[in-house]
């Protein structure tokens, strides 16, 4: 299933946030959205998953979601959004219960996703007992449980320290390599973008517009920490972003 964003524009009150964004997210690819903070990345992602409506433009699904898919458009949030009163297992089962999946069938799915995210030993733990990286893995497990067609990730690693981020990037690459998923991956971290993105979309400062789209042909599994080719792309991206970021930083914030 592909996603198409068709000429999306939006304003909150008098503030124009996004202007005429058109993008295709092809099945099985990770598209990274980068841009200075406040340029409307999170807003665009909320539109993509139907949590909010754009003032103009449309979000289209092309094709039907694969068989067995419970929640085609599934989010992974920066702040994990785990229910603190439910265990790891309970947090995963939360999203199955409403689909009438209980008992043995639920057990099988939960066990599978916890193995894939290396959390089997922590099924009974409460979120407060977990480190940030583990919490985000629980959120990933929860997302995998509903067999999404598209994963919408909003800065999923930004709340984590640098080492944890590297580990989790490896985990994500591993997950994708074993079973390619489609994803819109929002980040302001260019190193993440060049490690995980098949395509990188650079947005300008607010109002967000597409400045440039960079394709990276190198397969994900071959991209390593400190790769020279990726460094070149990253430098190019930083060249694009630097002035935008500086200008965005110096604008008054009217909240």
């Amino acid at each position, binding site marked *: 299933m592909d996603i198409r964003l068709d000429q999306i524009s939006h304003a909150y009150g008098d503030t124009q946030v996004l202007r005429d964004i058109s993008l295709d997210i092809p099945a099985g690819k990770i598209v990274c959205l980068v841009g200075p903070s406040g340029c409307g990345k999170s807003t665009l992602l909320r539109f993509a998953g139907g949590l909010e409506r754009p003032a103009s433009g449309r979000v289209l699904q092309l094709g039907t979601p694969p068989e067995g898919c419970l929640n085609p458009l599934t989010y992974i949030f920066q702040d994990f959004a785990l229910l603190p009163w439910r265990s790891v297992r309970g947090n995963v089962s939360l999203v199955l219960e*409403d689909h009438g999946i209980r008992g043995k069938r639920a057990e099988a799915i939960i066990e599978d996703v916890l193995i894939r995210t290396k959390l089997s030993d922590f099924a009974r733990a409460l979120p407060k007992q977990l480190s940030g990286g583990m919490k985000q893995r629980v959120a990933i497990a929860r997302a995998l449980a509903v067999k999404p067609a598209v994963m919408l990730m909003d800065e999923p690693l930004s709340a984590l320290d640098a080492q944890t981020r590297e580990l989790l990037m490896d985990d994500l690459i591993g997950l994708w390599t074993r079973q390619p998923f489609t994803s819109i991956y929002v980040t302001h971290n260019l190193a993440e973008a060049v490690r995980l993105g098949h395509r990188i979309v650079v947005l300008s400062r607010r109002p967000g517009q597409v400045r440039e789209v960079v394709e990276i042909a190198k397969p994900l599994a071959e991209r390593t920490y400190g790769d020279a080719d990726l460094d070149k792309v990253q430098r190019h991206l930083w060249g694009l972003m630097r002035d935008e970021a500086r200008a965005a930083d110096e604008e008054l914030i009217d909240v």
Partner: protein
Amino acid sequence: MSETAGREPIEVRFRGGGFAPNSRRWVGFAVFVALIAFVEWGTRAGWITSLTLPRPSDVLATFVGLWESGLLFKHLVPSLTRLVIGAVIGATAGIAVGILIGLFSYMRAGVVPVVAAIFPIPKIALLPLFVIWFGIDEGSKYALIAFGTFTPTVVATYGAVDNVDRSLIRMGQSFGLTWWSIVRKIVLPGAMPGILSGLRISLAIAIILLVAAEMLGAEYGIGAYILEAGSLYDLERLFVGVVILSLLGIIVSAAIAAVERRLLAWRT
């Protein structure tokens, strides 16, 4: 910092500490014991006259007498029944209305002013009205207690619902949870800490109103017992009644603490 040579090092003064309550139960107990011992000493030594305060040991003796005569339970059982029925009705209705206010803007716009209007009315003033509406028997007593617990519970509950983390609700919606699932599995547990601390206040108010309710047309009950002792200026019996109410308050508070420990173990 080049002048350090030859000087004595000074240890950095500790200034962290405090602002972190931890459990010191025996302190509360010790304060009680000290207070009672002080009054006992004063009444025995004579600088507290028997008209000012009764002697604690006499109060205890009166209490034992009440127990042995079987009258204690004759007073306690109807009181507890009234308290439980009234508080359960009031708290349940309060939680339900509070959640509705938290969830629906029209409820909020319509009901919050009404609650604000009835909150400051001393419910005791309405007792004659309740007697006409619900009868002189148990009905008016339940109504008074229920009404008194209702308003603080409503206010605490909708405040608690307002404080539920919106990002969790977003998450529920993004996974396609039904409205009812979101309310049951996200809003309600998320509001539970606020609801329980509201109940602490509501139930204390319920005990106050219990006594007020029993001062009118009740033969048995802690309130009736206290009223009778007061009109006879029987300080020992008056204090027995007061002590029973205090114990009731401590028990209710401990019960809520136990519920919190069970339901809110997920909190850090």
